[in-house]
């Protein structure tokens, strides 16, 4: 019998089933936005909000949606939350909205959101789906902010408003250019593989 409240659905998203490092999903915003820490944080929050809202609605209506038309229904629910986020940001944080650009509406086709709707929210109760959304959203936010700290720190010598290495630092420019994104993510995944492999060997 399934437990009604399953805290594991929260913690899985953070490390064991981290949507980015393990499942390789949602790479587009991760690589494109992570050249600035502030924007990454904004992207993480917007993304978690969409995931939270769509998991909430989808798990609540899952009994009334015929399985043949479930994908279009899911997409419309997700698109609604993306539009809400889009217009809220345009009203209150126009600069962030300009920096996120096309990646904000593209959350609609983000594989993580549709994947969690299909794999989790459509099969579990509302509370667990919300935990799952928070775990996955937080897992995504952690990775994107970590990448941004590495890229902005090395490529520009700053983390948000902080200056790291003083005035004489010569920025490692390639890090904030597109190739740096691939490079940093490649090394992060290699690091995770290494840590996971070491634990298995012990």
């Amino acid at each position, binding site marked *: 019998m399934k437990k009604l409240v399953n805290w594991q659905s929260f913690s899985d998203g953070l490390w064991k089933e981290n949507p980015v490092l393990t499942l390789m999903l949602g790479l*587009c915003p991760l690589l494109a936005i992570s050249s600035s820490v502030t924007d990454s944080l904004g992207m993480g929050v917007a993304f978690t909000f969409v995931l939270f809202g769509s998991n909430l609605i989808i798990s609540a209506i899952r009994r009334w949606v015929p399985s043949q038309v479930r994908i279009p229904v899911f*997409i*419309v629910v997700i*698109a609604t939350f993306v539009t809400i986020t889009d217009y809220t940001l345009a009203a209150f944080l126009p600069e962030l909205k300009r920096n996120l650009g*096309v990646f904000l509406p593209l959350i609609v*086709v983000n594989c993580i959101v549709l994947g969690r709707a299909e794999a989790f929210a459509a099969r579990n109760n509302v509370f667990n789906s919300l935990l799952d959304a928070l775990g996955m959203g937080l897992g995504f936010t952690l990775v994107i902010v970590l990448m941004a700290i590495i890229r902005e720190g090395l490529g520009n010598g700053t983390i948000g408003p902080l200056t790291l290495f003083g005035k004489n630092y010569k920025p490692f420019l*390639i890090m904030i250019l597109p*190739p740096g994104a691939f490079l940093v993510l*490649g090394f992060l995944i290699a690091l995770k593989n290494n840590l996971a492999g070491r634990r298995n060997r012990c």
Partner: protein
Amino acid sequence: MLNQLNLGLIFLSAFLVNNILLIKFIALCSFFGLSNSLAASLGMGLAVMFVMVMSSSVSWAVYHYLLLPLHLEYLRTTAFILTIASLVQFEEIILRKKSPALYRALGIYLPLITTNCAILAAAFLGIDYQLNFLQNLVYSLGVSGGYCLAILLFAGLRERVDSAPVPPSFQGVPIAFITASLMSLAFLGFKGLFKL
């Protein structure tokens, strides 16, 4: 702005300078998911070209003749994704009836395309750059051509990387990312061609 350039430059800008995969970071799931086989990459690349040119033209028309006059711009996201999903379904049916050979080659990639973000992104970007219909057509040709080029080159490289000695932690995906990083660096060189 992009809409002031001539058609040839719009094509080059979308094809090389702002390559959708390596510079703009769109549609990376299929880039890493399919590129371990040259045949699959070719199939996906052609399917993307086929669908993107049609879907961004139809989305352009939907936006300018339906959403703008009715002041429904806020429905853009929903309207585009529904347009694209139904168009892909429609094309699948037509292809199966009219051209079974092409259907056999592209068939399995067509359903995947609905969630390929390059298609939706090209539709959004055409609107954001305020292109007219002809410019939008050329732009989508350039974007999908650039997708094809990058995924084919990458698949070729990965076949070689598979037989190279790679440290255990880097095997599989991490080395693919580092390969992509070097390719992206090469494409960054096209930035010198012209501004934007």
